[in-house]
């Protein structure tokens, strides 16, 4: 694991070392807030995403939308696109200002973490998709029935949403209901929902877009 604080040259060296030694390289973006959320001088996290993809990081924390670590949905989507896609199309709302062809450059796996729990599975899938590492830390270890039960609750919740989505259901709307139904047969999930079900972090994000789409009449 590395942090942004080691500096980009060191990060490049570490990525080469990791390749050579068969290691997966995780980037924990501690320190990014000092410049990625500063509008007057600083570097957007989209740019950081691009750099870390180019220098060969394997996964990076890229925002969660719903957790305790803030994030504007469209900005996060822009980071995810930059990390994952083979061709990033111009999308002003997401902060992508020009087309970028990544050729065969491998992607980076985004990591979502920070205050996420089983009760948010539907929102996580909706905002972040399935090509993402969901790190339920406190949402696993803080489970009243123990860590294994915590892991079970999270797996059940995520699999329920994947199943519902694949079956063509409106999982974002039906999500809470699906979770409640599953909690009837899954005691760990029931306990998780009892503890965390009502917790959400609703504050304004400072990862704000520079461009907002305005509705225009159809031509």
């Amino acid at each position, binding site marked *: 694991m590395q942090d942004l604080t080691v500096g980009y040259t060191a990060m490049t060296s570490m990525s080469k070392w990791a390749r050579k030694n068969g290691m997966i390289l995780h980037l924990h973006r501690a320190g990014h807030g000092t410049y990625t959320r500063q509008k007057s001088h600083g570097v957007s996290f989209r740019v950081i995403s691009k750099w870390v993809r180019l220098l060969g990081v394997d996964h990076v924390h890229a925002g969660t939308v719903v957790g305790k670590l803030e994030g504007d949905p469209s900005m996060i989507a822009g980071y995810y696109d930059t990390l994952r896609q083979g061709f990033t199309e111009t999308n002003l709302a997401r902060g992508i200002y020009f087309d970028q062809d990544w050729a065969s450059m491998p*992607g980076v796996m985004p990591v979502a973490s920070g205050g996420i729990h089983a009760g948010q599975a539907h929102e996580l899938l909706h905002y972040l998709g399935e090509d993402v590492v969901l790190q339920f830390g406190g949402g696993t270890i803080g489970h009243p029935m123990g860590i294994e039960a915590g892991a079970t609750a999270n797996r059940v919740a995520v*699999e329920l949403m*994947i199943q519902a989505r694949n079956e063509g259901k409106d999982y974002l709307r039906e999500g809470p209901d699906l979770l409640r139904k599953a909690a009837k047969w899954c005691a760990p999930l029931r306990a998780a929902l009892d503890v965390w079900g009502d917790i959400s972090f609703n504050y304004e994000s400072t990862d704000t877009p520079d461009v907002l789409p305005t509705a225009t009449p159809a031509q």
Partner: protein
Amino acid sequence: MYITQGTFSYLPPLTDDQIKAQVKYCLDNGWAVSVEYTDDPHPRNFLWDMWGLPMFDMRDPAAILLEINRCREANPQKYVRVNAYDATLGRQTTALQYIVQRPDNEPGFRLERQEGHDRQIRYTLHPYSLDRPAGERYPK
């Protein structure tokens, strides 16, 4: 020990309709669906025995369910799973994989501790399901 590999292994066993719905999702995404079976659920045994070739040209979920059921009938006491392979450039990996049958008895694993040179210790997992009298693992 209830094996939890692949997607949906933490949910109750899928019904035929649910299996078909997932197969349909795979086909709609253009993924190649295949069926595999094994008696060795070791987590590192990721290449199970193939039930025929991946069904590259099959576009009908019902026909794939038929193959799944044929595999289940032929291997009633083995694990059977469905794989969907995404051949898209940049992905080229298994996109969805789920177990659709498991044996009645899942005995689990034991931890093997091997003492090596210089007091070095190596650990490995051994599935109890492989401990059968000589010759009984393979069809006669």
